[in-house]
């Protein structure tokens, strides 16, 4: 079979000195699904950005359909027939599906006005040709994420993409939606398309891909047929050592409820009811998982618990004392810590040093300052301890956070939040977008906290994570609890999906406190 795409000896060094690709060579055979896997910071997204013209390589060559090409912008890539579906979808939420489809390529009436009918027609045509359903007249913001992704794929197909790049497409999808996507991808392959599929979920790679390229440390380790490798083999190649995959049994020593939430409601600025009479308990010694599709009220719930947002109604207590109306600092001082879902927005100040990030919640406490004076020597010593203990890859505490990889930045956040050994841990998307090694470490730390009798509230869009760690699970849909699973031994990912999508709900759950 011919190679549709060949990248040879790609070298890419970012301005801050980070080498993202070091002599990377990859060949993608025509009409295959080619997976690229690797830890975060391994260089896979950078490689894709170079192929799609978003970044420029310093050295190396790219061959497309046999001839050497120079791709200086996404426009060049699209002209050649390369399409990309980004991790964060690039659609205009206020425009309709049809308008998004033709954006930048609009059919016109009288040369000026957008020909809406023609746009709808184009959308229906492309939909039909590839068997991908999308309602042309609906606005993007009213569609579920799985359909939005489909629109992005359609958009690339409309521009005659022969090669489709999907950057971690399943990270935002439920298992059911993932199934639909995979069906779509197989269909596209049958119609002669080639697909590059970036992921760090190994079971998906096994399921969908024909060939797999494994990257580690800015280099390509190997490219093989998927059938030659087991999940363990791939993981081993990715990380360079063995990783455990077993579900960890829950500890039995459950204590009293530590955090209690009762009838919590939140109405946002646009008068939308984001949380509706939410009630649950988290007990000492357990990990309570909150499963749900992103955007169903989890973000607001976590911010309310941490004191960053005021609820409209309801009560939150920690060890029986109310948290409502307290400042974030008071709440922290009562023993609640918070790993935020967006580490770059909330978790770190990236243009400053590790040291200054570590002391955020403790700079005013004894051991870090005396009166108004900061004790920098003690702070440096403390930072060095955290760097060593949490295995953070950084030359020193004086390093800028922005020069670290995603996984290491998350370790900085986790190190700060967990090192004070708080009683109540709120962990929101604690391993989103980080590598397997870092993920394993975060999971171990959460389990250890649980075993020490701490309470953990785990909010995650990653069902594998929820299933692997949780003692109990509640499911959120549209701001309400729609299911509660007590016995995790029998629960599979597929069981949670219908609840997450709102097609099913436990009648008994609403109004009752799952405890």
């Amino acid at each position, binding site marked *: 079979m011919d190679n549709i795409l060949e990248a040879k000896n790609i070298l890419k*060094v970012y*301005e*801050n*000195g*980070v*080498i993202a690709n070091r002599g990377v060579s990859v060949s993608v055979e025509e009409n295959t699904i080619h997976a690229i896997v690797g830890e975060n910071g391994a260089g896979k997204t950078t490689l894709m950005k170079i192929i799609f013209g978003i970044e420029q390589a*310093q050295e190396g060559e790219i061959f497309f359909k046999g001839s050497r090409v120079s791709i200086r912008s996404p426009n060049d890539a699209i002209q050649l027939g390369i399409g990309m579906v980004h991790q964060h979808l690039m659609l205009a939420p206020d425009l309709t599906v049809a308008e998004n489809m033709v954006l930048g390529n609009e059919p016109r009436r009288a040369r000026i006005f957008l020909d809406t009918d023609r746009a709808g027609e184009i959308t229906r045509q492309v939909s039909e040709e590839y068997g991908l359903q999308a309602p042309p007249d609906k606005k993007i913001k009213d569609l579920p994420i799985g359909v939005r992704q489909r629109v992005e794929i359609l958009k690339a197909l409309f521009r005659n993409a022969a090669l489709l790049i999907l950057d971690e497409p399943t990270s935002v999808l439920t298992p059911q939606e993932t199934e639909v996507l995979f069906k779509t991808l197989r269909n596209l392959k049958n119609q002669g398309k080639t697909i590059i599929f970036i992921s760090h979920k190994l079971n998906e790679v096994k399921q969908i891909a024909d060939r797999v390229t494994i990257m580690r440390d800015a280099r390509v380790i190997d490219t093989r047929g998927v059938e030659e490798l087991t999940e363990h083999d791939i993981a081993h190649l990715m990380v360079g050592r063995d990783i455990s995959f077993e579900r960890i049994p829950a500890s039995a020593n459950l204590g009293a409820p530590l955090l209690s939430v009762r009838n919590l409601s939140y109405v946002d600025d646009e008068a939308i009811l984001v949380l509706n009479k939410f009630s649950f308990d988290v007990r000492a010694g357990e990990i309570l998982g909150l499963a749900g599709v992103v955007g169903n009220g989890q973000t607001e719930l976590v911010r309310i618990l*941490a004191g*960053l947002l005021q609820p409209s109604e309801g009560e939150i207590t920690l060890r029986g004392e109310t948290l409502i109306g307290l*400042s*974030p*600092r008071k709440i*922290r001082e009562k023993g609640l810590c*918070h790993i*935020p879902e967006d580490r770059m*927005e*909330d*978790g*770190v*100040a*990236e*243009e*400053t040093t590790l040291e*200054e990030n570590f*002391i*955020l*919640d403790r*700079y*005013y406490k004894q051991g870090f*300052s005396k009166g*108004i*004076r*900061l004790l*920098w020597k003690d702070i440096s010593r403390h930072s060095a301890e955290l760097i060593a203990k949490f295995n953070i890859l950084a*030359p020193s505490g004086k390093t800028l956070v922005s*020069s670290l990889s995603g996984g290491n930045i998350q370790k900085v956040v986790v190190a700060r939040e967990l090192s004070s050994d708080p009683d109540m841990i709120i962990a929101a998307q604690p391993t989103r977008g980080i590598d397997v090694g870092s993920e394993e470490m975060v999971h171990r730390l959460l389990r250890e906290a649980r075993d020490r009798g701490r309470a953990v509230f785990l909010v995650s869009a990653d069902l594998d994570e929820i299933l692997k760690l949780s003692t109990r699970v509640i499911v959120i849909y549209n701001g309400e609890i729609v299911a509660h699973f007590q016995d995790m031994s029998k629960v599979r990912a597929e069981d949670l999906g219908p609840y997450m999508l709102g097609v099913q709900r436990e009648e008994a759950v609403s109004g009752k406190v799952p405890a």
Partner: protein
Amino acid sequence: MEKFLLKYFTLIRVIIAIAIGIVISVFLIFLISREPGFSLRSFLLGPLLTRSRFAHVFETASPIIFCGLAIAVAFQAKQFNIGAEGSLYIGAAVATAFAVSTNMPAFIHIPLVLLVGGLTGAAWSFIPGILKAKWKASELVSSLMLNYVAYFLGLYLINFHFRDKEAGFLVSYQFPETAWLPRFIPDTRIHYGIILALVAAVLVYYFLYHTTTGYEIRSTGFNDRFARYGGINVFKVIILCQVILGFLAAVGGTTEIMGIHRRFVWQDSPGYGWSGIIVAIIGRNHPLLIIPASFFLSYMQVGGRVLNLMSDVPAEMITVIQSIIILLITAEAFLSQWKYRITLRQAEKGDAV
């Protein structure tokens, strides 16, 4: 060598920007002056040629240092308050009112006048602070507008209530001698304001980098969501840094009238607040770098004045040169290719990051 270049890249860039600015100004002078050699000498060496001009550099530098520090404190918290000029003006005006209507021994009069000036500026700057913290009103807009209000208020106060009708100019009464900031170098007007400015720079440096409140200010500036998430009272920081700004700027203005003029003489706003923004940018908001930046700017301004007096080149030249330098310093991309190539070579050697 290359490692050294990387480490001090920002500083090197500033120096190169200044050098280019000077080269362009030399070029411009050759273009417009009929006696370019003489003009150039006036501009570049003028401040060094007489004792009083050289002293001028120090005299002008001290309010600029104060205003640069003021701006730096607010900019470090990413509060783009540009009201140093207004705080300086109203602070100096109220300090004047206080100085000419009280009588006490110097050792208490001097600090009190300074304090009255500073507190007036702080109170003035509290307005954009509270507007921002409470109602998210852009401090850039409100502080800019308040500059005009401060100017006319100050002017009203001096011209209608404290004007010295015997003076023959629109100026206030002269300060009693107990409120004079002493001069300490004979035959010059260099006064203790410069010492206060240098002390203030060290104090502000210590405050920003070695105290808990300084940490709160800088963290808020780096990422205000991060600060709030970690429990820092961002509301307090937003107000506090602007109050400090007003205080420092007003003290700077007050030292100037106490040390140089000994009465309020500004019928036009003196512009130190704007120079403060320039030196804060050149000094990258670092209190200790603001000192050399202020001396540099002061030297250029004195050179510009000499140029204006002695030659056929207009003083506006100096504004052009300032603009070029600021432009080059603030343009992030300037010389970034060069830095990038060094980074690349270092990375290939394998010892980067």
